[in-house]
């Protein structure tokens, strides 16, 4: 039954396969490689892919494959936690706006408009400049600056649901607002929210890698796909593997997450 569905929704299946594969790489990273991601080997500086280092080494002689494996942990962590924060915020604010309406709604929706005024990266980078560029800060900041889409979706869902009979019935029985929102409204609004959350994960991963590439994200020596590419820029034209593989890792991950999200959306629409 499930397999039949999976076969039909190829987008979803491919996406799921990619995301699962990367998830497994992240979990079992230490078992998949002989090298420490931070181990420097002066005899192996910038060596091209070979049987010894299957994806080559960087300018400090560190094994690129190991660094990519451990880098996937950073990306997935950022994706999951940042999206967790933004989805939670979007759910709370969107539900309040949709359920209570009136001035609370207009106030919250103006706040959404306001947050959307700030050019991508500007607010994030300003906060990072003032705090520290650490992994925890980055996850929190990305989360706090990307909840607006979810809030709008939740609000629209709740607006269309709250006049329905089962909600009226719950009100008549005397259920509290909190109970109506969390037990009756939100579960019925979750479909599009989950799709948005998954697509948001792709965004969070992209932002983290961009920040790390600028040197304002995850700090070396901790490997992240973005900060590995800093080395690629410094060795442009000398070490093609340093440019190709980390970028490919980001590209495939985002592609997989997007496919998963779009596949779910197709499902959700039916």
């Amino acid at each position: 039954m499930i397999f039949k569905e999976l076969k039909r929704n190829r987008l979803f299946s491919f996406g799921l396969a990619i995301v699962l594969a990367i998830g497994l790489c992240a979990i079992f990273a230490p078992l998949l490689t002989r090298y420490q991601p931070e181990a420097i080997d002066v005899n192996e500086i910038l060596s091209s892919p070979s049987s010894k280092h299957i994806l080559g080494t960087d300018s400090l002689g560190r094994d690129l494959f190991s660094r990519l494996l451990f880098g996937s942990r950073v990306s997935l962590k950022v994706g999951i936690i940042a999206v967790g924060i933004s989805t939670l915020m979007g759910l709370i604010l969107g539900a309040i706006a949709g359920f209570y309406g009136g001035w609370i709604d207009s106030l919250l929706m103006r706040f959404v408009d306001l947050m959307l005024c700030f050019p991508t990266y500007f607010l994030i980078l300003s906060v990072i400049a003032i705090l520290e560029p650490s992994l925890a800060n980055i996850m929190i900041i990305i989360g706090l600056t990307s909840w607006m889409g979810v809030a709008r979706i939740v609000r629209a869902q709740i607006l269309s649901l709250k006049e329905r009979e089962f909600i009226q019935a719950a009100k008549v029985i005397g259920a509290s607002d909190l109970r109506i929102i969390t037990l009756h409204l939100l579960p019925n609004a979750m479909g599009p929210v989950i799709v948005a959350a998954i697509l948001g994960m792709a965004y969070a991963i992209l932002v983290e890698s961009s920040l790390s590439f600028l040197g304002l994200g995850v700090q070396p020596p901790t490997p992240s796909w973005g900060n590995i590419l800093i080395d690629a820029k410094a060795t442009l034209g000398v070490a093609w593997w340093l440019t190709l593989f980390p970028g490919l890792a980001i590209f495939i991950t985002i592609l997989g997450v997007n496919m998963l999200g779009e596949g779910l959306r197709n499902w959700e629409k039916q």
Partner: protein
Amino acid sequence: MIVYIFRRLCGLIPLLIGISAISFFVIHLAPGKPVGIQSDLNPKVSLEVRARLEKLYGLDKPVAVQFKNWFLRLLRFDFGRSFLDDRLVTEKIKERLPITVLINLLSLFLIFIIGIPIGVKSALKPGSFFDKVSTSLVFLGFAMPSFWLALLLMSFFAVTLRWLPVSGIKSIDFEFLTLPYKILDVARHLILPVFVSAFGSLAGISRYMRQGMLEVINSDYVRAARSRGLSEARVIYNHALRNALIPIITILGLSIPGLIGGSVIFETIFAIPGMGRLFFESVMSRDYTLIMGLLVLGSVFTLLGNLIADIAYAWVDPRIRYSR
């Protein structure tokens, strides 16, 4: 129309207050509260920086007074002087602005002339080979990190083939060139940055265009135009396309924050002395006054871009003007 514009302008006031409130909040995240063990232990907080911030923003005054002062400063576009070289923040931004505006306009143009035809062509024959290829390419485009694309293009066209310059906007011998060659020189430097900056929105625009075109083609007035016996080309270009283009105006407006934000990335990679790179430099050197100025101005530009898009929308679609 004038009433509409006036109404839209009034709607900007709360947003401007909001922008100043959020940027005010960001300043207050700055380390080194007046008395705190944390600030004493944090070596990054120099007392001098704190003292300057305090003097500039009046951080020793009550919060309400501080906010009022901050807001009044913003109205006058007074962001103080750069921590780094003591020049006026507005002046530093002004000299970096033209190149960023130029690149963003060029990439908007590129998005327009590439994205729209692709969207239209795939909507005319949904399910065709072209449609399938372009839909897949759009999907791949969405997943492409722009900074990686920049690196790939740079290593291929600039380093391997040596067709294009690696970075910057002028060659070393720029001063000795005659005017036509000067323009050519800058153009050669701008090819890769403009392409990279357009690429991110290209996929989105062609997709929206496809969707919009599909909706319009199935609408009653297009069917009516067909039934009157108009030629297919006329139906498509005079009736369908013109209406399908209207929502694209809003999408273009909405892509402005992404374009301005994206300029931080590609201007840094290509070493283009624009606003994005200035922002990166100010973050790297923790030049707080410059950061605040760019944060506020960046969002004000976004507001203006959206305003222009809305006005253009109302101009082409009277239903918007007269509703509400």
